[in-house]
């Protein structure tokens, strides 16, 4: 067991994957001597060389497009997109090429590319550094979309993503990079939670909170606060946005009868909508109240000084729980 922050855990996971498989290579802006703007690739170029840790020209379409080509040639590129708002120049490559090549080639072509994207807000930054673009990827068939919330998951999920034969969008909760946690680095095969399995992080009986990435800590905090008032909340970390582990959520909701989905992504047409729709299908007769969603507003991400009012807060989560309990 080792203790490390989430950013370091991703670094360690990348290192482990690169040690294991010489075909794994990293591509991105400033990931070499600088170690990335969040230092997630710190030291990797020094140890693996410029051919495996590639500082690319400043061009996201170039990063993703050439990664696709390298993957077609048998490599396993892991691309770093510097910030969430800067992935859009690559969108064409991601949606029309990366996501579609396997289907179009009847499975003959494989593009096991991983896109690492720091995501979400809460770091007091200027615009285009705080967006939550997951639903745009989740809505694109052919991509897998995951987001760890702890150092342990970050360490293992990045390795599982690299090992996946499919392209994986690996979102990193940027405001949690510095959050420390225990990482069990010695797990054997079969002991690591599968990449797309949701996990119950806290058991409860009155309502279920579903969350992922940066809102997991928030949901756990809300559950702690609710417990003081005698309300017992179950917290489920989705871990994967596409595919969704509906079964784990449904089991929880059958026990608690109530569901609140907490995301940073805007609620309107957001990931919570998919969870809510699936759960009302699967658990219609177990639900004691309509599914509630708490998340971002349908607005451009606001200026840093007021972002706390945009981001879901413990208060907003508890309000939603209260409304659910009152229904």
């Amino acid at each position, binding site marked *: 067991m080792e203790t490390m922050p989430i950013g370091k855990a991703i670094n360690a996971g990348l290192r482990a994957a690169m040690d294991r498989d010489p075909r794994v290579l990293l591509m991105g*802006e*400033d990931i*070499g*001597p*600088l*170690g990335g*703007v969040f230092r997630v690739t710190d030291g990797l170029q020094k140890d693996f060389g410029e051919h495996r840790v590639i*500082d*690319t*020209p*400043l*061009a*996201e*379409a*170039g990063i993703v497009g050439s990664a696709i080509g390298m993957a077609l040639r048998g490599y396993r590129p892991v691309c770093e997109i510097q910030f969430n*708002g*800067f992935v*859009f*120049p690559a969108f064409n490559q991601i949606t029309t090429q990366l996501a579609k090549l396997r289907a179009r080639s009847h499975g003959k072509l494989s593009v096991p590319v991983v896109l690492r994207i720091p995501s979400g807000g809460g770091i*007091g*930054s*200027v*615009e*285009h*550094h705080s967006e939550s673009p997951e639903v745009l990827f989740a809505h694109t068939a052919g991509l897998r979309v995951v987001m760890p919330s702890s150092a342990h998951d970050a360490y293992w999920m990045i390795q599982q993503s690299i090992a996946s034969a499919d392209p994986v969008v690996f979102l990193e909760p940027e405001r949690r990079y510095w959050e420390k946690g225990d990482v069990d680095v010695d797990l054997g095969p079969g002991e690591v939670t599968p990449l797309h399995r949701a996990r119950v992080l806290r058991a409860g009986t009155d309502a279920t909170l579903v969350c992922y990435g940066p809102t997991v800590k928030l949901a756990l905090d809300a559950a702690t606060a609710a417990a003081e008032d005698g309300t017992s909340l179950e917290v489920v970390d989705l871990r994967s946005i596409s595919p969704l582990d509906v079964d784990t959520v449904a089991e929880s909701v059958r026990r608690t009868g109530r569901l609140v989905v907490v995301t940073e992504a805007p*609620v*309107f047409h957001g990931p919570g909508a998919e969870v809510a729709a699936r759960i009302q299908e699967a658990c219609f007769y177990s639900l004691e109240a309509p599914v509630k969603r708490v998340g971002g*507003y*349908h*607005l*451009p991400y*606001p*200026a*840093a*000084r*007021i972002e706390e*009012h*945009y981001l879901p*807060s413990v*208060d*907003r989560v508890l*309000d939603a729980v209260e409304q659910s309990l009152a229904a």
Partner: protein
Amino acid sequence: MSDAAEGPDRAEHEVPGRHDDMVQLLDQHGVRREHPEHEVDLEPEELLGLLRDMVVLRRLDTEGEALQRQGQLGLWVGTRGQEGAQVGSAQATRRQDHVFPTYRDHGAALARGIDPVHVLSLFRGVDHGGWDPVEHGVHPYTLVIAAQLLPAVGYGMGVQRDGAVGTGDPARDTAVVAYLGDGATSQGEASEALNWAAVFQAPVVFFCQNNQWAISEPVARQSTVPLHRRAEGAGMPGVLVDGNDVLAVLAVTRAALERARSGGGPTFIEAYTYRMGAHTTADDPTRYRLSAETEAWREKDPIDRFRTYLRSEGILDDDYEAALDAEADEFAARLRAGVIALVDPEPVSMFDHAYAEPHPQVLAERDEFLAAWEQHDREAHGELVGGAS
């Protein structure tokens, strides 16, 4: 022997290629040079005005950095070393021209009459813009690399359709300046913009500040040919100018703007300069570049060189310098007070301008927000709950 003929000292990361075509009117020691194509003929007051703008811009940079260190700004994007490029290019614009800056072009913003406090509001985190883009003819800063370039071309195409090029009327003929960095030239959209501008002969001047670095990546990681030579492939003239020579920058940009305004089409200018400080206050340049390199560029400082020249011409004296220092101090004090006085926006204001016409979901979210605000935030912020209002 002229510096221009030698070209700038080249560190290993610089793009190999010929730099002997670099336009220079002042060498790095402040000695005036002739150039067969480019000349400026300025009155002493105009020359002093350029110095003043550069000194004030440098003070803006110093103050911005200090304010960030003191927690008054979330981030600062420095301009030190790029004063010649920014002031020279922006001073070449006319009132009716339109400027599409990046996030670093504070010199252009100041030259276009924007209150520096409004420039800093973005970096304080109270605003995404800060100034009235229509009033000043300056587009909001663009943080996504190269994303401003195609809109700049489109704006130029609009100018053409309005018949505001080639009329011969100096108050009417209009051009567009699109700023970009060396890193930005790598974006696909930069290539598209150059091509569009050439195909449609749009009145656009692409002003590329090659400050040698895109965060940690040297310009050699962006291009294997000197950046201005890209222009030829797109079908427009490409000019290399010493970006630390405010006179040469002014002359070259003026000529390019005149060409655009008169219907002659686009030009690409590469201003060869250097970012003396960090990429932003969040950056650590010691991780990727040697201090010897930065020191070598210090010798080419755009302000020192111009000051030397003005002194040698007897245009600048101690009295003016003292007055200028006092003006810069006063500017800094005003800026500091203005920034500290910037109040955070009302949280509910985030709902104000996303749409021009009512959007029912946004209105519903606004109601929800206000209800929750009544319940919690007011308490948290020590205001009355359910106040008498």
